[in-house]
């Protein structure tokens, strides 16, 4: 793959998925796209780039984007965002939405489903306090392949052990051969949908809680600011956004404000009717 071909691939990935690949990530492209070449019987990465440029195969374009997305996830990943949900956010919204008894949650980069299913299990555990409530969990991802896996709800032994308490494993999973399948009652609580965050997602409606962890780190500052602004627009006035613990919005947007008491938790900036990008984000 020549330098020009690598540049063309970088431009394609950015335009299609927002993925901002630095020039030193050539090894990542080579390691991840080899399997796409094999699958489509393409002899080299140079040929793959040529095929993509020709625009002849949308299936190849889709497979290339999916191969470059990172789908690392596990149940109750990082623990704190789920403790926060159980101990802070759920009690807050049970109180504040007591009249409507309606709660809407969006997992914006759901990958293979462990994050939304972790929330669904916590909601199920809180069922005694939620009689009569209508709770919606929308889980979206750019990869249809991971969404299919998420919908099926099958996980291997490694996946069900990493972060998932054994108590919840025996309660909400069934052993199917050497796999574990999450129960139909938990699966039915999550609505999986294809969504590319660089495109308009206002049709999803308004959310009380948004989880968007470890995805914006792959975007450049301008796109990150744009996505955060649009996420803020989907949030209820008292809505909550959870980003990854290592992510920051400092200098990126003023549409959201960090909750000083809880790392990774953001609320809509009060008075920010029309959130704007900060100048530093669009340089």
């Amino acid at each position, binding site marked *: 793959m020549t330098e020009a071909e690598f540049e063309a691939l970088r431009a394609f990935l950015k335009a299609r998925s927002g993925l901002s690949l630095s020039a030193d990530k050539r090894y990542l492209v080579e390691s991840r796209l080899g399997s796409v070449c094999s699958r489509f019987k393409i002899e080299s990465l140079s040929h793959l780039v040529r095929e993509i440029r020709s625009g002849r195969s949308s299936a190849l374009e889709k497979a290339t984007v999916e191969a470059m997305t990172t789908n690392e996830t596990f149940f*109750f990943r990082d623990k704190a965002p789920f403790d926060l949900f159980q101990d802070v956010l759920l009690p807050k919204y049970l109180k504040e939405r007591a009249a409507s008894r309606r709660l809407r949650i969006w997992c914006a980069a759901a990958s293979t489903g462990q994050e939304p299913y972790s929330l669904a299990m916590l909601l199920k555990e809180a069922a005694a306090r939620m009689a009569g409530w209508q709770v919606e969990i929308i889980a979206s991802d750019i990869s249809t392949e991971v969404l299919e896996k998420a919908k099926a709800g099958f996980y291997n*032994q*490694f996946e069900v052990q990493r972060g998932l308490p*054994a108590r919840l494993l025996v309660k909400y999973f069934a052993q199917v051969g050497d796999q574990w399948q999450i129960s139909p009652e938990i699966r039915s609580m999550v609505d999986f949908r294809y969504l590319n965050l660089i495109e308009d997602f206002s049709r999803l409606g308004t959310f009380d809680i948004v989880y968007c962890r470890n995805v914006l780190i792959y975007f450049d500052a301008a796109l990150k600011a744009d996505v955060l602004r649009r996420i803020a627009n989907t949030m209820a006035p008292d809505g909550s956004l959870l980003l990854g613990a*290592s992510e920051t919005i400092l200098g990126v947007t003023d549409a959201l404000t960090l909750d000083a008491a809880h790392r990774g938790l953001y609320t809509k900036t009060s008075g920010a009717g029309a959130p704007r990008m900060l100048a530093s984000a669009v340089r």
Partner: protein
Amino acid sequence: MNHCLIVDDSRVIRKVSRQIVESLSFRVSEAENGEVGLLACQAEMPDLILLDWNMPVMDGYTFLTRLRATPEGQHPVVVFCTTENDVQYITRALNAGANEYIMKPFDKGILAAKLEGLGLLTAPTAG
């Protein structure tokens, strides 16, 4: 520094588990079966016990029920680490007082995530 007792009849498993647990900043001692494990607990009650199921002399399940029958034996966090991966074993272990259950083989990531869940480790800040 928290103290971890590894109860497993396999010397290899004990060695590998020791390396993982020491890398998570635990002080480690070992026992090759449940009986030796109970004696070790009488001498010094650990904070964490990694427990195999099938062992000669005394198996892990018997060890756990005897440990939890004593007031001092309520203290340690007990994590079964076993090749028994049937849901009935897991349920039985939890009902007998195990705090967690890990199916072998496992790696540092799995154990660390379990210990974070049990409050014995702090979750890393990076996502």
